[in-house]
């Protein structure tokens, strides 16, 4: 859905989005990294409909994802890091035993 402005090169890092390695500039948030693709961050617990980030400033919670194993993380608030695992959150997050 989004692309980087050409004259703004930055060091890339590799993140793993839903198991697929992707090279992105280091200065992105996890939500921004997902938005370079199809943007879908989660499906809702109520109807299962897909969602993408809406506000990008921490208020809408539509970018809740599982990041490095932690569910319900606001992807727009987390800067990417080398090797970060970013997974779409399907429905309500699972309670771990």
């Amino acid at each position, binding site marked *: *859905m989004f692309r980087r402005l050409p004259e703004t090169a930055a060091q890339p890092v590799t993140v793993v989005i839903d198991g697929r390695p992707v090279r992105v500039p280091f200065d992105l948030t996890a939500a921004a990294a997902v938005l370079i693709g199809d943007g879908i961050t989660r499906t809702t617990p109520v109807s299962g409909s897909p969602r993408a*980030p809406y506000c990008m400033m921490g208020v809408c919670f539509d970018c809740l994802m599982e990041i490095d194993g932690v569910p319900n993380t606001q992807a727009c608030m987390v800067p990417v890091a080398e090797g970060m695992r970013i997974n779409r959150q399907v429905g309500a997050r699972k309670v771990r035993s």
Partner: protein
Amino acid sequence: MSAADLVVIGAGPAGLAAAASAAGLGLATQVLDEQPEPGGQIFREIERVAASHPALFSLLGEDYGAGLELLGRFRASGARHLPRATVWQIDDERRVYYRHAAGAASIQARQVLIATGALERPVPVPGWTLPGVMSCGAAQTLLKSAALVPDGRVVLAGSGPLLLLVAVQLLRAGIRPAAVLETPIQRFAALRHLPRFAAAPGYLNKGLAMLRELRASGVPFRRGVRGLAVSGAGRAEAVRYDWRGRRREQDVDLVLLHQGLAPNLNLALSLRCEHLWDESQRCFRPRLDPWGACSVPGVWIAGDGGGIAGARAAECSGALAALAAACSLGRISKHERDARAKPFLRERERHLAARAFLDTLYRPPAEILAPSEPRTVVCRCEEVTAGEIRRLATEQDCPGPNQMKAFTRCGMGPCQGRLCGLTVTELIAESRNISPAEAGYYRIRPPVKPVTVGDLAELDV
């Protein structure tokens, strides 16, 4: 647990100006901010953009660039800054609880300044929950913080200064929107406020310059658009609207919505400080004295979180709150406070002069404030529709938003009403033929941001 004379929550214009002033007056000042870099949404990532991306820095415009001076003052002031720190509660003893990179923590504040700024007003139109629909502010944040621009056919829809600014910034970045759709604006009602608006520093010229730049681009700029709706299977594919007596349709990849700003109130509301309904801005705001004191002792509120007034007025409010906090801590006398306050009070008045015109001109249309299409999702988290809220407000005699929560779970999802609160208030008010003030707002309780049981267990209290 650490301590500070003044804890400032939020590092936007109000918070930064307050922190710089307070530290300058000798107060031990701690800023807690959610974002990785200071600046708030308006000056998002400004230091890094200025240093690394000169072309991006210049296309964002001079109002963005002006933030560097404030950032410089803040950095030199000695105020401490903790980034990526999310405050979830302020308790009765003014302990401030937050989580950050190292886990959960708290800080004892002698005085607290809430500078949590604004959020974009919800734009509940059919299809606004589809992937491929975002707020204009979100696109601007992606541009500032990540140098990302929309890829594909983009339509901007709604009204307000930010809609025009984002359109112009995208154009400068080489992105040509497929259309800019403006919902009806109140030209005639706003006209009587024009003289004061014209006297406010820079506003009229900036507005006219944006309109000229947009028109000169040749991008279709359709004004007076109604019945906005987004449709698509699993993502936004088309936007439909009424314009000049006909239903229109436009294929899209991305729709950017905007309908003005509203104060981000959750932290203030969680303190039970007194709030009032602001009819001209069509939102609730805390009742504040000229220094920013709310009804809870030792707590100050500055910037757009106290009512939408813009970045320049927010800086003044921040400085004024810092003076008042320093005075109430005995650091400066009342006489000194009043003397130092004069230029800030004057400057704030000059900027506030722009509000009546802007608030009237860009008052959101009734069909957006209280959506008439019954299937429109109002609460995005719990997927509660406008039709359901209207029906319960009348048939089930549901008197207000808190009862509506119990009926429908609206406002009980992770966003805690931030994206549905005003709409639910408006729908109930309209359905029951009462004022929004009478309908009221959600009762907001801490934690105002999600916190884990693990975070709570870690706390050293």
